[in-house]
């Protein structure tokens, strides 16, 4: 910092010198200085200036004076030397010529002022480092302060690192004055500038004085102090004089530096010191601090920014004069602020689409104001813990490629995530932890960098980088403050943009999802208003149901359905339940006529659980499926029919018997009547009885034929309430003779009180017939005990079960599982469809069929049938067929 002030002073004092070029060389931190480093630096400087006619060398700092003198002797023996040191002892004995300024590091004048301003001071604590200069100062102060021995106690804190120092300082009572000597190298060898000390101590509530004006405005009270910038001016004047006249002092001349009498108005206020106590010849600074006043304090964040570190400055008399650096700096700041003000407005108003263009404009503006060449904006992805670049400027350049930011720049990444700025004018300023970052940055050729973290509620949301690859940029504090303002706007903007992007993404996703769906999808609100829709079914207008043909965004779908009438109004009622959230979903089929024949659509509605309610309604054309289903049903009916024909075929002998018996009786009765009537005295009464018998037997024969016909006809009667017991009895009549023919005993255990079940009567009879004939055939093969037992009774869940058990050989274990599958048969000449058909029929009744082998041998088939619950049941059953 001191160097910076001196340098500023030199530049200000020499800026109107014609044809003067100033070369500035900085040295690394003293802590890193080794002989090898020094040697390589010498080599570098020799190379750099070997062909430059240097007329004058300026050494700033005790450490550099011998170095500079050595360089002068080696390369520019005729060049003059000007220097600034804190100790006379730093001047090499063998030095022949040079004009120097001696910086007074003794805070005594400032202590004196403080004591006069604040009589209540009862203690003075001298904070001091471990260098020899510090030691000398301590001795001197110890002596000087004895004059106050009656009223103040004096103590020394030596070589204490900053955080600890503040802690120690707190332990002193009120009324303690803290005096800083030079910058402090603490016990650990780490160097803290006294500006930092002053700031920290002042923040902790202490009154601080210092020997120089460096900490003025940073927390120090002020006083009669060494003025660095003025010392710079003095050096500048000497340089001009020497270069203008070509005459320098003969021999080594050392004078004291310029001083300055000034106090910080804010410190006065803080400690309740009336301005009237301040001597007339003292300036009162920062009365109304403005950005321009603060501007004078440049920011140097590098760790090398300590007093009298090391600077080598050389001047060359060959080119035109330098620009007025400070004025330019001021101008730049004004431009920057104007530019940021404008871009901020643009940023706040920018839509996500406009953001890239706005950022480009901002980048170009920053480049113009700050002289940087790169700008990038990054967003932080919390899931990956990574910064992802969303803006890079200039577009003509290719952004650096690296695997991940966090891996490539771990230090910078960590600093930014923790909400800290990363600033460097030169790569070397980065700390040792940043070794990896430095390595990578060096590859990019980066010179200066400023990284500002973008945070929202202390969480990282992004970062903002500006960098130069050609120039070492001194990042001015005001510039950083201005950029911080800009960053705050960027935070708002990025978070807004990201939210909008996410919303748009989900919008886009739902749009794409809609678009990709086959069929016709509508999104409706709680009133049925269509909010969104995808492209329509691949059906022509006249192939659509009427309600869908008119369905466009903005129309009310429920009203369209109601208006369409017929089945559509039924749909409207169902949909309304879903739309208002009474039902979560609904599936409906809708059949309708088109010029090309009947079509079917399936409509699925899914309720939206949002505040506005509403639903997604997806309509799919299912005509093909319906056709296939109907074909399947027809095929099934045909198969069932074939099965019935086959089942009856099995019974032909038995059926012939059933018909021949009444026919025989009819014939006998008719012939008896004929004989009775042909007698000379006809027996009318007996004849009438015979004719009555004929009528009865004829009815009996007709009944058998009717039954057969009903079994053989293709159509079915429909699902209805059926008395299971009656159906069993009826069926048994068909097979009883068959059983007798085959010497199988049929036993029917009747339960006369069973309520009706749900079935189609003919199909149920077919199932029973199949099961009994199968049982008879299975039993037939047995040598004796050929029995089939049939009974119906209640089962669980209010169902009824029909059981057909036989004394046959049972069903082999490997066939038990597949016996209801199509094309399985144990019959030699059977169709093999009997049992699968039984199952499909029973399934269609909503029942089920099972089989098991009995422990006593033989098998038991069970048909479970649903009880008939009332008229609603059959209509419900029918509902899935058509709406």
């Amino acid at each position: 910092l001191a160097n910076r002030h001196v340098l500023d002073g030199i530049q200000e004092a020499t800026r109107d010198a014609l044809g003067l070029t100033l070369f500035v060389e900085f040295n690394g931190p003293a802590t890193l200085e080794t002989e090898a480093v020094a040697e390589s630096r010498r080599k570098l400087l020799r190379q750099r200036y070997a062909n430059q006619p240097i007329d004058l060398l300026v050494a700033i700092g005790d450490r550099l004076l011998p170095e500079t003198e050595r360089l002068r002797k080696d390369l520019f023996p005729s060049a003059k030397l000007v220097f600034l040191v804190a100790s006379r002892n730093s001047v090499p004995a063998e030095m022949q010529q040079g004009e120097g300024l001696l910086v007074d590091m003794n805070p005594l004048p400032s202590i004196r002022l403080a004591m006069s301003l604040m009589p209540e001071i009862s203690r003075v604590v001298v904070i001091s480092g471990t260098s020899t200069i510090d030691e000398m100062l301590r001795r001197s102060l110890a002596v000087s302060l004895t004059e106050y021995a009656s009223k103040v106690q004096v103590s020394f804190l030596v070589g204490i690192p900053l955080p600890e120092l503040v802690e120690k300082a707190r332990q002193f009572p009120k009324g303690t004055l803290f005096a800083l000597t030079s910058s402090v190298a603490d016990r650990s060898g780490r160097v803290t500038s006294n500006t930092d000390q002053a700031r920290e101590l002042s923040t902790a509530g202490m009154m601080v004085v210092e020997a120089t004006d460096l900490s003025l405005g940073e927390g120090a009270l002020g006083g009669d102090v060494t003025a660095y910038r003025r010392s710079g001016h003095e050096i500048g004047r000497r340089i001009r004089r020497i270069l203008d006249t070509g005459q320098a002092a003969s021999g080594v001349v050392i004078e004291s530096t310029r001083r300055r009498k000034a106090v910080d108005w804010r410190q006065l206020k803080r400690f309740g010191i009336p301005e009237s106590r301040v001597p007339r010849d003292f300036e009162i600074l920062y009365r109304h601090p403005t950005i321009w006043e603060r501007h004078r304090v440049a920011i140097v964040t590098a760790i090398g920014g300590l007093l009298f570190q090391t600077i080598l400055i050389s001047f060359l008399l060959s080119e035109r004069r330098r620009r007025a650096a400070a004025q330019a700096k001021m101008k730049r700041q004004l431009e920057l602020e104007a530019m940021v003000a404008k871009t901020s407005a643009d940023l706040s108003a920018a839509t996500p689409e406009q953001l890239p263009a706005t950022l480009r404009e901002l980048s170009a503006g920053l480049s113009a104001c700050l002289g940087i060449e790169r700008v990038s904006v990054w967003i932080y992805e919390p899931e990956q813990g990574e910064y992802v670049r969303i803006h890079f400027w200039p577009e003509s350049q290719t952004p650096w490629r690296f695997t991940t930011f966090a891996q490539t720049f771990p230090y910078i990444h960590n600093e930014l995530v923790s909400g800290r700025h990363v600033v460097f004018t030169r790569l070397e300023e980065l700390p040792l932890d940043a070794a990896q970052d430095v390595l990578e940055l060096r590859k990019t050729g980066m010179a200066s960098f400023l990284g500002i973290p973008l945070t929202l509620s202390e969480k990282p949301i992004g970062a903002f980088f500006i960098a130069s690859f050609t120039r070492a940029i001194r990042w001015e504090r005001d510039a950083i403050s201005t950029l911080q303002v800009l960053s705050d706007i960027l935070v708002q903007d990025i978070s807004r943009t990201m939210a909008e992007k996410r919303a748009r993404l989900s919008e886009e996703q739902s749009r794409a999802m809609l678009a990709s769906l086959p069929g016709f999808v509508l999104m409706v609100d709680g009133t049925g208003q269509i909010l969104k829709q995808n492209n329509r079914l691949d059906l022509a207008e006249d192939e659509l149901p009427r309600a869908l043909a008119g369905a466009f965004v903005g129309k009310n779908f429920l009203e369209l359905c109601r208006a369409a009438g017929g089945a559509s109004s039924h749909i409207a009622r169902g949909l309304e339940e879903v739309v208002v959230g009474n039902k979560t979903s609904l599936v409906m089929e809708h059949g309708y006529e088109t010029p090309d024949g009947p079509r079917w659509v399936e409509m699925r509605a899914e309720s939206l659980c949002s505040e506005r309610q509403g639903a997604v309604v997806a309509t799919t054309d299912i005509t093909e499926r319906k056709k296939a289903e109907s074909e399947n049903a027809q095929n099934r009916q045909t198969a069932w029919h074939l099965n019935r024909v086959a089942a009856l075929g099995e019974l032909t002998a038995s059926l012939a018997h059933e018909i021949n018996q009444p026919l025989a009786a009819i014939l006998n009765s008719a012939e008896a009547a004929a004989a009775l009537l042909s007698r000379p005295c006809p027996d009318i009464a007996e004849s009438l009885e015979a004719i009555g018998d004929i009528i009865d037997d004829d009815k009996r024969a007709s009944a058998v034929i009717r039954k057969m016909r009903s079994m053989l006809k293709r159509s079915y009667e429909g699902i209805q309430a059926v008395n299971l017991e009656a159906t069993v009895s009826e069926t048994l009549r068909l097979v009883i003779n068959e059983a007798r023919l085959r010497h199988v005993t049929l036993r029917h255990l009747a339960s006369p009180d069973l309520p009706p079940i749900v079935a189609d009567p003919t199909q149920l009879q077919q199932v029973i017939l199949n099961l009994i004939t199968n049982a008879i055939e299975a039993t037939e093969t047995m040598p004796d005990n050929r029995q089939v037992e049939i009974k119906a009774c209640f089962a669980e869940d209010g169902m009824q079960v029909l059981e057909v058990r036989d004394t046959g050989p049972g069903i082999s274990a490997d066939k038990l599982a597949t016996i209801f599958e199509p094309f399985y048969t144990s019959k030699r000449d059977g169709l093999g469809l009997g049992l699968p058909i039984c199952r499909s029929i029973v399934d269609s009744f909503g029942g089920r069929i099972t089989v098991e082998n009995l422990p006593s041998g033989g098998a038991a088939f069970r048909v479970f049938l649903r009880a008939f619950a009332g008229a609603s049941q059959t209509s419900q059953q029918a509902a899935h067929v058509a709406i």
Partner: protein
Amino acid sequence: MLKAPMKVAIVDDDESVRRGLERLLHAHLCTVSTYASAEEFLENVRRLDVDVALIDIYLPGLSGIELLKRLESEVGAPPVILMTAHGESETADALLDAGHTFCLRKPFTLEQLLDAMLAA
């Protein structure tokens, strides 16, 4: 026509068949007794005085064929005419082929019945 009224026993489980036959034979002045099963007939056979027995082949329990076999071993058993309502009956065919007895296929005419009775 029958020269003299005959005494006929009818064994058939079908009631209307029994009634029809009985009425027909009555009309032709025969004396008729009816039985619903082979067992019932066997119970009474020793006390019976019949000229011919009309027996249905398919009876519940003991079948007509089995009844026929029992009667063949009885001394003084009446001649038998079998009846069947099954169009084709291998068992009946086999018996007839062996010349054992008559078999009438239902429905049969009066003429067929009388021929069989006379032949028996």
